[in-house]
């Protein structure tokens, strides 16, 4: 149970109303009881001085692998939601490619219960689009939705038959469940491990061409239009995909997109020296792609920045580059990398906050991502002026696989509250 408390003198920003003010916020029973003057009968057991700090809604991460169940050597619900709390994240949305796959209400329920017992953040599951992610038979999507799945997806597994994909979209649309897609043509991917460009060619690394993404985007956009489903593109990596999504959005097709924070900062150049921490899927692409993704974020084609969190045990990255497993342990760098876009004058602070809170909330129809009376007290308090050095050693995630070791950031999460409970405070 959470105590009643007041955060006073906070610079509060609520992206759902675009309201900014310096005020006090009163929390009771895990909910926001009042903003401004103290309500009658409210007695705070605790006062938190937020002088000079920014209070934002807790971050909602659309793409976060906790690794439980099935891959507990890489991470657990406890370890990864603890890392989430440090990163100011209060809601994590998890792909269905766990072991077992989240393709039945029973598995969704199992995760929900484990999270209820131990999680330091709200854990929401994406149900499988097809049974076992095999791309052949539909899952019981209505039942998955009833058991709390907020979207369906085939994760990174291919649905090779477009007829099945189209019907899956139509069926999901029937129950008004968004479909999350990772656009990747597996034949064109061809066991590649890096962007098919200058650096990979020189290093002799098998390449993944941009067309591996854009061919899939093109097919999915056509099917989205015919089926009327809401298709959400996860972790796009190419400039061309931004253009295609923009065209579709202008035509009124119901498509949204997110990008992983690291794709906005790193490029193919970062794999120089065979740095396995930069082995990612989708791969880091060119500077031009990175800039186009940034413009997509600034211009509104992309309305959410996700972590793309994939923690790994050390051994998974201790091998020659192509033999390592792709992914970054990214929950603890999601906010700092997004705030860096503000420092670099790409976007303003309200836009940065909305990309992490109200933007993702709208995509999956969540009622969170806002600071309003009666809402869950999912909050993140940030010292925006504080400069600090991020180190892999200090990570709370079980996976220390990060390419950002030693990066200097400004903006530090001093406290995180999940349903009114303090889940992170700097020690």
């Amino acid at each position, binding site marked *: 149970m959470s105590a009643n408390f007041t955060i006073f003198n906070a610079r509060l920003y609520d992206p759902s109303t675009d309201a900014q003010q310096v005020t006090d916020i009163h929390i009771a029973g895990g909910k926001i009881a009042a903003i401004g003057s103290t309500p009658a009968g409210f007695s705070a057991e605790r006062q938190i001085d937020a002088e000079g700090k920014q209070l934002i809604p807790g971050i909602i991460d659309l793409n976060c692998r906790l690794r439980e169940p099935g891959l507990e050597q890489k991470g657990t619900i406890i370890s990864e939601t603890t890392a989430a709390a440090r990163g100011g994240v209060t809601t994590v949305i998890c792909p269905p490619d766990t072991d077992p796959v989240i393709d039945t209400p029973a598995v969704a329920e199992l995760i929900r219960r484990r999270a209820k017992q131990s999680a330091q953040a709200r854990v929401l599951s994406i149900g499988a689009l097809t049974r076992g992610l095999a791309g052949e038979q539909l899952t019981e999507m209505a039942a998955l939705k009833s058991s709390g799945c907020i979207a369906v997806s085939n994760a990174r597994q291919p649905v090779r038959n477009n007829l099945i994909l189209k019907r899956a979209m139509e069926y999901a649309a029937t129950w008004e469940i968004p479909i999350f897609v990772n656009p990747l043509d597996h034949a064109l991917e061809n066991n590649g491990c890096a962007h098919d*460009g*200058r650096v990979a060619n*020189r*290093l*002799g690394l098998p390449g993944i061409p941009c067309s591996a993404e854009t061919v899939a985007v093109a097919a999915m956009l056509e099917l989205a239009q015919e089926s009327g489903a809401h298709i959400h593109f996860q972790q796009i990596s190419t400039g061309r995909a931004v253009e295609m999504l923009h065209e579709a959005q202008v035509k009124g097709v119901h498509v949204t997109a997110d990008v992983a924070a690291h794709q906005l900062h790193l490029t193919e150049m970062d794999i120089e020296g065979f740095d396995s921490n930069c082995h990612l899927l989708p791969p880091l692409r060119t500077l031009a792609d990175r800039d186009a993704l940034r413009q997509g974020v600034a211009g509104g084609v992309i309305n959410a920045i996700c972590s793309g969190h994939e923690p790994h045990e050390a051994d998974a990255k201790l*091998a020659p580059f192509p033999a390592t497993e792709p992914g970054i342990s990214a929950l603890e760098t999601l906010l700092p990398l997004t705030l860096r876009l503000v420092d670099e004058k790409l976007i303003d602070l309200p836009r940065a906050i909305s990309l992490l809170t109200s933007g993702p909330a709208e995509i999956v129809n969540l009622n969170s991502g806002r600071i309003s009376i009666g809402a869950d007290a999912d909050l993140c308090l940030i010292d925006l002026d504080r400069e600090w050095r991020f180190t892999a050693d200090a990570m709370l995630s079980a996976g220390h696989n990060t390419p950002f070791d030693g990066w200097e950031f400004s903006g530090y999460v001093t406290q995180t509250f999940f349903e009114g409970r303090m889940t992170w405070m700097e020690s």
Partner: protein
Amino acid sequence: MSAVNLQLDENNKLRHFLSIEGLNRDLLLRILDSAESFINITGRSVKKVPALRGKVIANLFFENSTRTRTTFELAAKRLSADVLNLNISTSATSKGESLLDTLRNLEAMDVDMFVMRHGDSGAAHFLASHANPGVSIINAGDGQHSHPTQAMLDMFTIRSVKGDFTPLRVAIVGDILHSRVARSQIMALNTLGVSEVRVIAPRTLIPSNARESLGVHVYHDMDEGIRDVDVIIMLRLQKERMSGALLPSEHEFFQCYGLTEERLQLADDEVTVMHPGPINRGVEMATAVADGKHSVILQQVTYGIAVRMAILSMAMQPSSGREQ
């Protein structure tokens, strides 16, 4: 960590030999000069020098190889080193041992130097970045990335025939896309300052941005590409390229890109023909060319021993990590 830092010590001396990239012209020339001094030894009746007496060199070949492994072994033995040949495909990895564990175990047996061939690009860099101080890694081929000792023996061959690199036009023909040999040759030729490097192949076998990423002139027409060149390097064509829809048939490849006596007329009169071996006669080149007067293919093999002796002796550290 960049390849430059990994390969050289603080005095810019060779520490590992992983790729041509990051090595300057002077160092490449020193390797060639050192190889020159070993050529005389290989012709003697007692073919040994005591340079690496007491040192242990392990040959770690994760991919099959006859020529490269044998010449490395001969090079090490002529330098009086003790040589361990590990047939990895049938031992460690089949038991699930990681590459790092293999390295640690052999280091524990006081191996001073590893000569490794591995199917993954970057494998030699990986090993070098985790090796104990005093232990050297020699790349005998990693994935599609690099095969620097092959490139150096090719440079040695070119220098011994042509004398000087600067006026040369060199054409490399065949599967550039998948070739670690080609990547290393191109970097070595450009570092040594030849006047032009051309690559000749159909579009399926050349990286899309080869001009920028590799620094070469790209030709798809064989006759046009070999016109007036001084050196032609033919690459081996792997059979599996036919199944991946990269080429229709060996027959068509030979028709379009095979080196025949007729085509050879288009090149410089004194043209030198090279091939890293093993040759597919009638696929990459006609038998008459392979065995003809322009061919130096067998010299390449002989020089391979001297060049590898030079590289092994230059990269060997004075004392192993344990003694430090």
